[in-house]
């Protein structure tokens, strides 16, 4: 198996990458501005629906049910796509998905393909694979185009260029777009001018390239329909104008029936971009004679998803509908932005999906990249209990570490083991408290411990520690009982 999640297997550990991000003041300003705007919009849009909680509950129940019978629904979906004139391919891993797609393109002599934003294609590194075979993938989502032209990585699952501000975008366009040929003489950083430049640049591609690639927000089992939710119309261009359309779909994107869209087409736009409805939703099934492509391929991708499904505690991560609300609300993401996560899936949801897809062999620092404040759970439209899964994954990683010699003699592990012994017995606890009270004296300044030595300095580097008080709660409690 060759399971890849972007370049996560070679990414730096989160603490190292985060430190670099924290030094970039411009990045932090951009991320803070954008996430504040999107959060406020999302909060307004969910608050105005009296039945928002009922929608969340239904979304959670539908997704959980679907995973329990995923095999049945995938077979239904396949049968319906086939009946409607499409062809379904199954890809066990990233390499197989790339091979299938590259072969379809090569068999038709394609040299260029137009792409709608698909995080799944970033997950399997499709663009690299196509370029290696002499095929040019053209990203048509504005943010993806910015990221592609700027040779950057996406930093957010909904708004991949969230870390770049309008002036930086103008500079990328000035250096990478043929502005003169497009008739643009003096490009400013006005967002509508930037959008106009992208419109002019891509229009010719839309009208001439014969093969399109898309992802899917939902795949509907009972009709074989694919649902694509977007704003700009680039998605509609890619899925209706080319002769050949290839849609890459993670197997967890299935919903049982067309009717279920009444839940998800409310939950997704309000959570993702803070809109009552995004400008365009496209729903299509197989081939429609006289309207759109004459050839339609769906590639169903596993790439580690069935491993996640086999994990009773962690499988809920597969309920994700990629709205990004948990990123926007996360205090850690706010500070670091998305690149520090080293994955195409960033933020809290990325911290549970990325390591699980890779069977915890890589990205092992991500489950620790959270303060466990629970804000991600509160905003999740499908009610994924992200903090609980983070804790569960931390436990798995620590237990795996303890089985190695280095892990067993790791200072933190030894300290934790010692703490466990202390907490297990009230006598030992009382003695330990007494010793600690004596030992802390030299570290207390102005009533707080502001600097600890060696390994313990990690705690006091950025915050003060309250000293152990003269009388502990347990002492106070037993004294009070004696006095009564």
């Amino acid at each position, binding site marked *: 198996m060759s399971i890849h999640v972007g370049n996560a297997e070679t990414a730096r550990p989160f603490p190292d990458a985060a430190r670099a991000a924290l030094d970039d003041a411009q990045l932090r300003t951009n991320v803070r501005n954008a996430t504040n705007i999107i959060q406020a919009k999302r909060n307004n849009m969910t608050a105005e629906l009296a039945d928002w909680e*009922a929608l969340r509950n239904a979304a959670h129940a539908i997704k959980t049910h679907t995973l329990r019978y995923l095999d049945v629904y995938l077979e239904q979906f396949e049968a319906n796509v086939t009946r409607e004139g499409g062809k379904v391919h199954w890809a066990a891993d990233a390499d197989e998905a790339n091979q299938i797609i590259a072969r379809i393109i090569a068999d038709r002599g394609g040299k260029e393909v137009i792409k709608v934003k698909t995080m799944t294609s970033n997950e399997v590194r499709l663009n690299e694979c196509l370029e290696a075979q002499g095929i040019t993938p053209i990203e048509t989502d504005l943010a993806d185009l910015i990221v592609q032209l700027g040779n950057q990585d996406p930093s957010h699952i909904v708004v991949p260029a969230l870390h770049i501000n309008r002036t930086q975008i103008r500079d990328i366009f000035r250096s990478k777009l043929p502005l003169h040929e497009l008739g643009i003489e003096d490009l400013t950083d006005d967002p509508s001018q930037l959008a106009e430049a992208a419109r002019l640049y891509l229009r010719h591609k839309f009208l001439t390239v014969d093969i399109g690639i898309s992802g899917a927000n939902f795949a509907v089992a009972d009709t074989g329909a694919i649902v694509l939710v977007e704003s700009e119309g680039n998605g509609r261009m890619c899925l209706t104008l080319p002769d050949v359309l290839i849609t890459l779909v993670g197997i967890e994107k299935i919903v049982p029936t067309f009717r279920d869209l009444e839940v998800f087409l409310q939950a997704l736009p309000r959570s993702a971009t803070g809109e009552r409805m995004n400008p365009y939703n*496209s729903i299509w099934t197989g081939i429609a004679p006289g309207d759109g492509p004459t050839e339609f391929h769906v590639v169903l991708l596993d790439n580690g998803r069935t491993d996640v499904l086999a994990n009773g505690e962690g499988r809920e991560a597969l309920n994700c509908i990629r709205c990004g609300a948990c990123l926007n609300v996360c205090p850690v993401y706010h500070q670091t932005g998305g690149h520090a996560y080293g994955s195409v899936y960033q933020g809290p949801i990325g911290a549970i999906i990325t390591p699980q897809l890779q069977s915890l062999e890589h990205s092992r620092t991500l489950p620790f990249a959270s303060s466990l404040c629970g804000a991600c759970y509160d905003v999740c439209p499908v009610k994924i209990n992200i903090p609980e899964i983070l804790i569960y994954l931390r436990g798995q990683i620590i237990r795996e570490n303890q089985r190695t010699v280095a892990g067993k003699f790791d200072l933190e592990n030894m300290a934790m083991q010692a703490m466990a012994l202390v907490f297990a017995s009230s006598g030992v606890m009382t003695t330990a408290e007494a010793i600690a009270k004596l030992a802390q004296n030299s570290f207390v300044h102005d009533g707080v411990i502001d600097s600890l030595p060696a390994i313990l300095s990690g705690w006091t580097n950025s915050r003060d520690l309250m000293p152990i008080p003269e009388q502990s709660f347990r002492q106070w409690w037993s004294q009070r009982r004696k006095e009564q």
Partner: protein
Amino acid sequence: MISDSRSAILSRIRAANKLAATAEREREYGAVARDYRIQGSLNDADRLHLFDERIRHYNGTPFYSTGDIKSDIAAILARRSKHTLVIPAEFPSDWLPEECHFIRDENLTKQQLDGVDGVLTTCTLAIALTGTIVVESSSAQGRRAATLIPDYHLCVVRQSDIVELVPEAIRRLERIKHRPLTFISGPSATVDIEMTRVRGVHGPRTLDILLI
């Protein structure tokens, strides 16, 4: 090779789920609690008012018919300075004002669609709460490309086709759920630059609604 992956993926799913209660599937699905709003509560006037407000919120412009649809269309197109429009093959002829030039879409090329001023269609239904119109692929409402490539879209909406809620719309669309459907909420837009909604990227940059 391909069929190998198919059976491998399906058997891995079955192993992960460890249950053979397939007979229970439909009952379990039916037991999903749908306590969200399924029926709207507004009267006709309030529903229309809500649709009007929501369409404007996303930069669409509603117009109200005087009863003479042909002259309504003429007035809107004159105001927008649009002269050449593409129309679906079965768009009603008696709604077409003589002073404009209409081209029926009988397999126009992409380049031809790119050369017109706009497109004139009807729609299947509209959703008041979200300010959305739903267009189906049919000879009356046209191909998807026709409502996409031209820069201007004028859509005729029957007031009786406006529903209040998304679930009401989805349930009405059930009978045509195999056709390509497009939900349109305002002109094309992007929020990719600093999360600010900017009007007009690849789809029509102006969306007018004529309510009849």
